[in-house]
């Protein structure tokens, strides 16, 4: 919640430690507040992430992505319930887009996740993308670390409904599940969108509708023809499902477990997969911090205001302006 974390370093550390203790006890309100601190990037949030970091890294992160309305939330809810039945503690992060015009957002994924009420082993948090364009928000991974510190061992991340985009979810998760529907068209259209390469597992949802088996055939053929096979020989399975009726969910989980076993089966492979992802994440973190620090307290905005009219009038080159502005 939005109470400012303006305090001395000592106080910040104290508050972070208190929050970490309550997290470790699985207190729901503390988990929620911790995610807010991290999402708002407050000093307490940052201190908290440092504190819990040694305790993270063991949870399994499953990303669920796909076009708008394909049934991601329905599927996530069904999978979460099955995992709960199997005794897992499940955390869900569901991202919906922030309006670029108003900065507001309507986060509606929760409508499909009703059984999160009253079950201490099931936690659902909606997050707004807040300006990120990769299908997740800047703090999604950090929020998943909070969930992990609170004892959730499976973390499901539902992205914004995307058609074509750079999908950051790959860097945040161990396994990416791409949800398609019969209406997604033939595999060529899916290939064009460029999201096919990121999937570790395809789900053709709404298989109760016309055209599912054709898409399934096309996908399998497309995979044979091309080498989307992951290094080390993982061929993404294609699983039909009717999420609305909870059909196909056991098979999806079985395939996800297989993928996990495949990753874990070869320590070198898992280490490499995670190291490559970590490296990308570190670069993202570094970029973000560089950008913030460059803008903060600098005269760049004022200078831009001052020169914009001349750039617009083509009296000043925009490229030269940037060079000059940053070389000061």
């Amino acid at each position, binding site marked *: *919640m*939005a*109470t*400012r974390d303006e305090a001395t370093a000592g106080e910040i550390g104290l508050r972070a430690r208190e929050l970490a203790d309550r997290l470790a006890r699985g207190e*729901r*309100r503390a*988990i*929620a*507040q911790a*995610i*807010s601190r991290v*999402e*708002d*990037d407050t000093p307490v949030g940052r201190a908290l992430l440092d504190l819990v970091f040694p305790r993270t890294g063991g949870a399994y992160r499953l990303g669920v992505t796909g076009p708008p309305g394909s049934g991601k939330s329905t599927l996530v809810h069904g999978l979460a319930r099955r995992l709960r039945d199997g005794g897992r503690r499940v955390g869900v992060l569901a991202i919906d887009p*922030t*309006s670029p015009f*108003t*900065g*507001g*957002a*309507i*986060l*509606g994924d*929760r*409508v499909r996740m*009703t059984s*999160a*009420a*009253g079950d201490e082993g099931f*936690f*659902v*948090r*909606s997050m*707004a993308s*807040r300006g990120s364009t990769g299908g997740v928000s800047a703090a999604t991974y950090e929020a998943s670390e909070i969930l992990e510190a609170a004892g959730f061992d499976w973390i499901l991340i539902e992205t914004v409904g995307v058609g074509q985009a750079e999908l950051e979810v790959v860097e945040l998760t161990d396994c990416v599940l791409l949800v398609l529907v019969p209406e997604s068209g033939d595999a060529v259209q899916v290939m064009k969108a460029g999201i096919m390469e990121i999937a570790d597992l395809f789900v053709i949802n709404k298989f109760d509708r016309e055209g599912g088996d054709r898409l399934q055939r096309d996908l399998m053929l497309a995979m044979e023809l091309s080498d989307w096979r992951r290094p080390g020989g993982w061929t993404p399975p294609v699983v039909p499902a009717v999420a609305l009726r909870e059909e196909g969910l056991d098979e999806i989980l079985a395939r996800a477990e297989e993928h996990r076993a495949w990753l874990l089966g070869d320590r070198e492979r898992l280490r490499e997969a995670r190291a490559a992802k970590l490296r990308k994440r570190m670069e993202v973190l570094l970029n973000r911090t560089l950008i913030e620090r460059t803008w903060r307290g600098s005269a760049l905005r004022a200078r831009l205001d001052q020169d914009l009219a001349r750039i617009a009038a083509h009296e000043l080159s925009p490229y030269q302006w940037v060079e000059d502005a940053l070389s000061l």
Partner: protein
Amino acid sequence: MEEKIRVMVAKPGLDGHDRGAKVVATAFRDAGFEVIYTGLHQTPEMIVDAAIQEDVDILSISVLSGAHMTIFPRLLALLKERGAEEIHVIGGGIIPREDARQLIAQGVGAIFGPGTPTGEAVAYIRDWHAGRKTG
């Protein structure tokens, strides 16, 4: 990073449609709030547990069924029980003036009757949030 005002829009009970709630949700989004929308037919227990997970600042409830004198006190009691009484409850719907007065005395922040321009609720939330930050 800038703090966002988070609002949960919920509609308890079994009465029909959620058009009103959607209008309110849209107005809040356009005001720059992050709005968590939970859909129809929520029990007070479900609403409070969701509000806690979402760490909202404001819980906005619309009640058309006439059950407001049981629903609002129940929500307030549950929030208290869960140590989340900082979550500020506001409401809308068909609520007689005298009932509204009683509910506000019990801790509901504000009640907006039918036909109230959504801008009023937006202004109320902004004021409340600004007041809490300095307070």
